[in-house]
């Protein structure tokens, strides 16, 4: 082949390779287009389709910021390096407490990587928690808290599929404003903050209610898009909104609002708590549970066990007797000794004996012979499963103190409870005004009313949260009496609370 021809064919080969590569590039990277009335849109190349499927496209994540996109282009593919340098700078500014430059730098990172959730969270936390605490004046602190919240809200625009940011806004508004040392002032400023609320009615400007709205938005996002709430147990995540309603009701009473408004708030709290109880919650045991179903499963388990035992009446007792016969003398003696009189080694022996005497449903079923054996085994299996489910629910309930809050929301609606709280509040007001006699009278009446409540709902006495609150109230009562030189009553009306929760008050 002549050199001229070779050169010609080489060019043809180059062109062919270019065409193949372009084809490959188009197949992989063709962007998707949206359709119009006349033309149908294209789903784009493989990468575009994958992005769409995995919800990674910029439009799928949230609003597109033209400024951010411009910066991204300007970094010529060095976005990661630029963000790293900016992080380093931000840390240096934080160390030097240069808040202006820290804010500006983090703002740049958010422009560069608007879907980098940690930056939004880090900066919002910085502003609302770290920077705000540097100021003495609570008004200044409040402003920094709001700056943090506003910053998070800015992040939500670009990350509309990220429930974490919504949840954070809820947390900042509810917890930072409602639980700080300055909560009284923060809540007051929050209510009066027209810039933050816009046209929201004043009655709805409570931080707990607004926080609840954001928690609910996070829940809605999780439910509607099927996205997950990373790094947070669904049990806790779902409890935040109803707990906000509880805290709202509690805060109303702390601020001195009683009567129908407070009752309404508690009714709402009870309803929301019931709703929370009926939500499906995935567990680490591999099953989904509903917190309200513990009693139902316990009842089912009980009925199944009764059915099982009815298949061969007296069998359980018989097995126990057999097991008892196998115990050692020492174990039998330990078991017979009352708990308080047991020696140290007897506790262990008694525990071993109790374990040895246990008759499981499976054991019971296996001992049943004849045609009923199959039914027995099935009943045993079902009963154990129901009991296990009830146990899982019980454990999960303990994490969020489910039973206490459920009971509390119902009890707080009662006239007696409302009036007991009001009387104690009035007593505190009188104490603040140094009217000790009036304070004592209010407290006497308030504690007597609490007695009535506790007699009706003895379950409250057992609860530690209620107990510690009540011990604080009793402590204040004791101080009033001390200042009046009155002795603390010998047969104190709430002595059982002191006995149960310590005499520290």
């Amino acid at each position, binding site marked *: 082949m002549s050199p001229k021809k070779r050169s010609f064919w080489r060019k043809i080969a180059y062109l062919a390779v270019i065409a193949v590569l372009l084809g490959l590039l188009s197949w992989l990277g063709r962007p998707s287009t949206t359709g119009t009335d006349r033309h149908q849109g294209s789903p784009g190349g493989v990468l575009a389709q994958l992005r769409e499927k995995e919800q990674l496209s910029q439009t799928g994540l949230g609003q597109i910021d*033209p*400024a951010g996109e411009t910066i991204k282009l300007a970094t010529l593919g060095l976005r990661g390096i630029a963000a790293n340098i900016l992080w380093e700078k931000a840390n240096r500014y934080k*160390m030097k407490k240069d808040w202006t*430059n820290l804010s500006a730098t983090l703002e*740049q990172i958010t422009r560069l990587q608007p879907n980098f959730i940690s930056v939004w969270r880090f900066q919002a936390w910085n502003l609302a928690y770290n920077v705000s605490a540097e100021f003495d004046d609570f008004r200044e602190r409040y402003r920094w808290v709001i700056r943090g919240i506003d910053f998070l809200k800015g992040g939500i625009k670009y990350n509309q599929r990220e429930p974490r940011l919504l949840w954070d806004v809820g947390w900042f508004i509810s917890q930072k404003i409602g639980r700080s*040392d300055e909560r009284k002032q923060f809540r007051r400023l929050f209510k009066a903050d027209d810039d933050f609320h816009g046209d929201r009615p004043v009655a709805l400007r409570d931080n707990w209610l607004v926080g609840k709205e954001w928690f609910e938005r996070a829940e809605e996002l999780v439910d509607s898009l099927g996205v997950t709430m990373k790094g947070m147990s669904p049990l806790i995540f779902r409890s935040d909104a109803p707990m906000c309603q509880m805290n709202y009701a509690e805060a109303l009473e702390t601020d001195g609002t009683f009567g129908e408004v407070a009752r309404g708030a508690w009714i709402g709290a009870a309803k929301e708590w019931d709703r929370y109880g009926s939500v499906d919650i995935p567990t680490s045991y591999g099953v989904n549970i509903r917190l309200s179903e513990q009693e139902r499963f316990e009842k089912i388990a009980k009925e199944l066990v009764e059915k099982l035992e009815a298949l061969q009446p007296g069998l359980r007792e018989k097995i126990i007797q057999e097991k008892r016969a196998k115990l050692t003398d020492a174990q039998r003696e330990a078991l017979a000794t009352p708990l308080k009189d047991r020696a140290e080694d007897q506790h262990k022996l008694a525990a071993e004996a109790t374990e040895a005497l246990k008759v499981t449903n499976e054991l019971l079923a296996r001992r049943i012979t004849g045609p009923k054996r199959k039914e027995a085994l099935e009943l045993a299996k079902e009963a154990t499963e129901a009991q296990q489910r009830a146990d899982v629910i019980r454990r999960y309930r303990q994490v969020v103190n489910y039973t206490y809050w459920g009971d509390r929301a119902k009890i707080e609606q009662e006239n007696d409870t409302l009036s007991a709280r009001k009387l104690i509040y009035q007593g505190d007001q009188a104490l603040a005004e140094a009217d000790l006699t009036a304070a004592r009278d209010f407290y006497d009446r308030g504690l007597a009313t609490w007695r009535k409540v506790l007699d009706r709902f003895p379950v409250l006495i057992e609860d530690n949260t209620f107990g510690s609150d009540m011990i604080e109230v009793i402590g204040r009562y004791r101080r009033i009496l001390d200042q009046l030189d009155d002795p603390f009553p010998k047969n104190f009306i709430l002595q059982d609370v002191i006995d149960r929760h310590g005499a520290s008050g």
Partner: protein
Amino acid sequence: MVLEHAETLPLEIWFPLALLKWLLVLGGVSVAVLMVGWLSVSIHHGPVAGIRIVGRLLAAMVGDMSHISPRRVWALSWLAVRESIRRRVMVVFAVFIVILLFAGWFLDPGSTNPTRLYLSFVLTATSYLVLLLALFLSSLSLPADIKSKTLHTVVTKPVRPNEILLGRICGFTMVGTFLLVTMAAISYVFVVRGLSHTHELTDADLHAVQYRAQSQPAVREGLTSRVHRHRHLATIEPAGQGRIAMEQNHWHDLEIEKSDGKTTYKLSRPRGMLVARVPVYGTLRFKDRDGKDSQKGVNVGDEWAYRSYIEGGTLATAVWTFDGITKKRFPESLFPKGLPVEMTIEVFRTYKGDTDDPEHIPGIPGSLSVRNPATGEMVEAVIFTAREFTTDVVYIPRRLQTPDGKVLDLFDDLVSDGKMEIWLRCVQPAQYFGAAQADVYLRARDASFTLNFIKGYFGIWLQMVLIIGIGVLFSTFLSGPVAIIATSGALIGGVFSGFMMRLAHGEVIGGGPIEAFIRIILQQNLVSDMEPGMRTTVAQMLDVVLGYGLYVAASILPAFGEFGFSDYVAYGFDISGAVILKNTCRAVAYLVPLFVAAYLFLKTREVAK
């Protein structure tokens, strides 16, 4: 303003010392260069001929330097200017305009200190662009001329090599200066317009507040409209005067007009935003909790060791000694309230305060006392509440009363030979005040912001001229792309010279370059010690050797960061004449040897002979 590495020596002491050091270094380097030159020539021509050749070169240099013709330099400069225009330098200007057009998207006028943000932005953007332009222009020019043989035409004319170089440097400087001046003017308008705003205030915004006894008329207070994400608290006194509270480091003047029974409130443009304070700094020393002299205060564990702390409720004191305090400098007509002291005190709290009553957390009180260093006479002048993250102003009255009732005159009794001490103490026990030298100063007057802004651009100009000098030097013996890389290396090295010096001294956590490289590869953290062994020993030995190289590089390269005055302008501090003079001297100190070296390189090149 934070001055971490402030040059504290007065100009008259600094200059002779710096000159001496410069001459010594220059002398040493010259001798070394001559020796190397002679040796390399001697290899080919023998030692005696070597001396003759080197001597001839030196004689030619003296001749060339003493016969520089301004007319020829001007002609060559103009040539460089025309060449730059041909190279479309105006593109940089267009880029600048585009950046400014989009800047509004990134700059938040509602930030806590928008002035700082805006000024830092325009100064940084301008310096990046101009330095890049200087880098490319200066590095590419001569190599391109050599490549295209244009230089051959030039050297056949009666021009000297130093005139060619000077022409290039001056020409590029002229182009850069023109761009810089234009950018400065546009930046100024951008900053002033970007920050300018006003608020609205109406009667409906105001409500009566009873601060005094019930019998006294109430003042009226209210918030202005929200502009640039902030509002101001407006207070109208019963007598009718109004004032607007400080917010985002500025305030507005309030004009109240009444006509037809209707009151209108007019707020001025922002005041106090664009300032250039002229500070009088003192020297700082400390006293410990027992009142004994100590080099430093307490370390409260702050990661940033810039400030030293004094314990409250003890004798721990931060003492600033000021010089040049005279009645003439602070006349009563201009300073009727007394001596203005501005402070940026940091507070380290060991407890938060009375959390049961946050409404009345009083802040951390401190005291300022004035002491005559000669007589020891001291009087407590001001009790204040510390305000952090902002510049607080207190005034030391001209007449001060001692606890025993004696009245002292500030200038007659508490100042000796212009010297005066200010003692800062934290009053509240178990709380701490943190202070650094630049944290307390006397605000002598306010200079013109516009002039200060220009001075800020002068800093960029100095950097630009240096880059042009370095670029031209490299372009005399390197090809265009290599000269660009070399000049960029010098620029980057200069910017990080402080870091390189710390690296050379082994002050950087994570070891020297080799050790750090091993740590990166092995993904080791910076803090834990390297595993003992051969590898570590070799790495650390190499680091010591590299440390010397880094030391030399860091000492030679111009520290570009120190030439920039952006922080002064952004933080609202006047750039003093002394600072400008020192930096100009530094720049000249670099430019002279750069020019001579470039001359020698060009002179010895084949093309220019």
